[in-house]
């Protein structure tokens, strides 16, 4: 079920009402059923894949806790391999086969393997990582193994963050399912503010920008450098608003019921370097990689060269996590390389104007690298980059898909984006509670956001980008 769909607008109040009407001991069951319904709106059969992950890690964690150190380690490795195997089959199998066939073809080996005709289960990478985080924390002794199968299932399946995070840690969430939450004004108000802001970012900003970005990337060879440049900038905001919008809705939907999920974004485009950017972008994933890959690899404890290598490895894996395509790997590696260089050169921007310059440089660099993230292939990415740097002129005619995208509409989208850039920080601070405004001003602010949803929203047309991961 999409957050930006009519189904969710019916589902959400029903779940909230049932949650507070039911006695505490039945709430977990209701939330679990609701989460199954939410997930099964996509491809119902894939719930069994999710169930397999849940069962494996549930059993493994109990065994880890009960076993000696050596056996616990075996259970941990077994759990990691089996969970990753599911991910490998559904997300990476065809990628490996395609590459194998490519290499076979290159060396003249007349043998090709068939790819599988399977759809990637929605949010597979997210719940796989959340599940892995649980077994690792149990192994490390930071979390007790959960004996209640239903509660553990709910930890993996909790509907607000099931398909696109935040990727939670068991210490933060599991205990909350045992706590009795009562309906209170602060949670409802903060949760609803968060949902409205998230919807605005997704439906008004991201999906409006997507209307321009998608056809430009699709017809990169048939549009001018100006269109391409606008599309590159638009995509930077599209992906930010799409993904942080999703996180806001997820955090808000959970907050209404009294649950606290971790923050996933902290105004990343205000960063003055790529290191800072990654401490503010998709925080739950960055910290996951830090805790479960970077530190076990040695982190920064083994000298400068090894630190650089560790960073590079982590970012390459992070790229691969995002998608089974070399464009994602290149995107991840480029970020890794940039971060390594930034650390080695000890780049610091101090003073107002230098910081502004640093922010601009970071935004330009991040936006440039998003080209590899957004493009379907290297050819498409190259076409976009080449079009911009060679100042590609507008060919004789625009493909007909651009007919509704006349100059006025593009100007309108730029204006919407400018308004967003101006209000992003203030509204984010208001919804986070770090900025206080009068109650009347708050009413008008959220009323204006709601009105924008009605007037400019692109309802139910565009999936959340991160669903594909």
């Amino acid at each position, binding site marked *: 079920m999409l957050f930006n769909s009519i189904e969710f607008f019916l589902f959400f109040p029903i779940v909230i009402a049932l949650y507070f009407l039911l006695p505490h001991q039945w709430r977990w069951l209701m939330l679990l059923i609701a989460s199954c319904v939410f997930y099964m709106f996509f491809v119902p059969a894939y719930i069994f894949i999710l169930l397999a992950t849940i069962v494996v890690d549930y059993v493994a964690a109990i065994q880890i806790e009960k076993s000696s150190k050596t056996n616990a380690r075996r259970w941990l490795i077994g759990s990691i391999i089996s969970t990753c195997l599911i991910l490998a089959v559904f997300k990476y199998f065809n990628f490996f086969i395609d590459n194998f066939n490519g290499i076979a073809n290159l060396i003249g080996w007349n043998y090709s393997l068939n790819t599988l005709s399977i759809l990637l289960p929605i949010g597979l990478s997210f719940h796989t990582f959340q599940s892995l985080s649980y077994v690792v924390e149990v192994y490390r002794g930071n979390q007790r193994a959960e004996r209640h199968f239903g509660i553990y299932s709910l930890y993996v399946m909790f509907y607000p963050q099931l398909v696109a995070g935040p990727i939670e840690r068991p210490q933060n969430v599991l205990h909350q399912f045992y706590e009795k939450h009562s309906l209170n004004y602060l949670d409802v108000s903060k949760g609803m503010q968060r949902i409205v802001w998230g919807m605005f970012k997704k439906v008004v900003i991201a999906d409006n920008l997507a209307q321009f970005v998608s056809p430009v990337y699709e*017809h990169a060879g048939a549009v001018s450098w100006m269109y391409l440049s606008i599309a590159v900038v638009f995509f930077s905001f599209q992906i930010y608003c799409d993904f942080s919008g999703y996180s806001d809705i997820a955090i808000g939907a959970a907050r209404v019921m009294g649950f606290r999920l971790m923050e996933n974004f902290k105004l990343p485009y205000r960063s003055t370097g790529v290191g800072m950017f990654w401490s503010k972008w998709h925080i739950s994933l960055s910290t996951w990689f830090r805790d479960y890959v970077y530190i076990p690899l040695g982190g920064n404890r083994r000298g400068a060269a090894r630190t650089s290598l560790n960073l590079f490895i982590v970012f390459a894996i992070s790229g691969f996590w995002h998608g089974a395509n070399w464009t994602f790997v290149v995107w991840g590696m480029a970020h890794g390389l940039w971060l390594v260089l930034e650390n080695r050169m000890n780049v610091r921007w101090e003073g107002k104007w230098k910081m502004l310059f640093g922010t601009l440089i970071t935004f330009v660099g991040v936006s440039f690298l998003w080209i590899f993230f957004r493009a379907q292939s290297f050819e498409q990415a190259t076409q976009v980059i080449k079009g911009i740097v060679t100042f590609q002129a507008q060919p004789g005619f625009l493909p007909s898909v651009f007919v509704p*995208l006349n100059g*006025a*509409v593009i100007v309108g989208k730029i204006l919407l984006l400018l308004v967003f850039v101006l209000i992003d920080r203030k509204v984010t601070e208001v919804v986070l509670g770090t900025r206080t405004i009068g109650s009347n001003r708050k009413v008008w602010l959220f*009323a*204006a956001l709601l009105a924008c949803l009605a007037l*400019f929203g692109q309802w139910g047309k565009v999936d959340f980008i991160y669903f594909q991961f």
Partner: protein
Amino acid sequence: MKLIIRNSLKVLLAALAIYAAVIFIFSNVQLIDRRMSLFFVPNLQRNGGQELQMMRDLTSSQTKYDAIVLGSSHAYRGYDPRIFEQSGISLFNAGTSAQNAKGSLVLYNEYLRNRSDVFLLDIYDPVFELEGTESNMRLIQNVPTNEAAFALVQQEWKMYTLNALAVRIASIKPMDEAPNNDYVKNGFCEKKGILYAVEPLNDSVFDANEEMFVAFEKMVKQMQSDGKRIVLCSHPLPPSAGLHNYHDKFLARFTPLIQRLGLHYIDLTYYTDGFGVNEFADISHMNQQGVELYNRLLMNSPSFNEVVK
């Protein structure tokens, strides 16, 4: 709980007030040479384009026609009443931009039911993929009566249809905007220009919107129950556009439906005799040279004559 309800109501009322104010401004204030709404929401205008010109022609008299065309821009640019008139067939072209079966059905019920016994339904594959935003918004704003506009909204209870209705109601002084300079008469627009190059769409995949097939079936069944005669037509498309794969996928879904409904389908999508780049204005529309050729081809078709004459 009381506090939650009270504050929610406050926010909703304030949102409604802001919405109404913006709709009013969008409907009545111009920026440069167009309604402000057009900068933010494509197609959100009051009165304009071929739709308005066609509706004016249609409602200015109660003439009965030998045949009426329904469909998308493919239709209103593809069937020239002047050419049919030369063969003694009076034709009205009620095609509108991206018109789908839902819109066609409302036009039929509100304005066309008593105006002809024969309906030519132009079939253009992409219309069976689209959500119908463009079509519905333009029709909602240009049908002459609020009742018809509301009937269109009822076909599609979506935010954008409500916005279009709101703009329609909020316009103090409806203005003619963006007239279609290609408009000739009886709904027809003459497309000029020549297609010089085509970006082949070999990889295009037909992605059916099942709602549109359901709506199409509903419309046809209603016309059939009213005793109307129906013929389905598709005009040729540029051979170099590489649409075979796409159209074949459409046909795989469409053919069983029309067989079940017992309809004639004159499908000239792949017809190439005489049709080169000079007969097309763009990848999906013929120019006048193409229209001349196609309309005569159609009138010589036995299926057409069987239904129309």
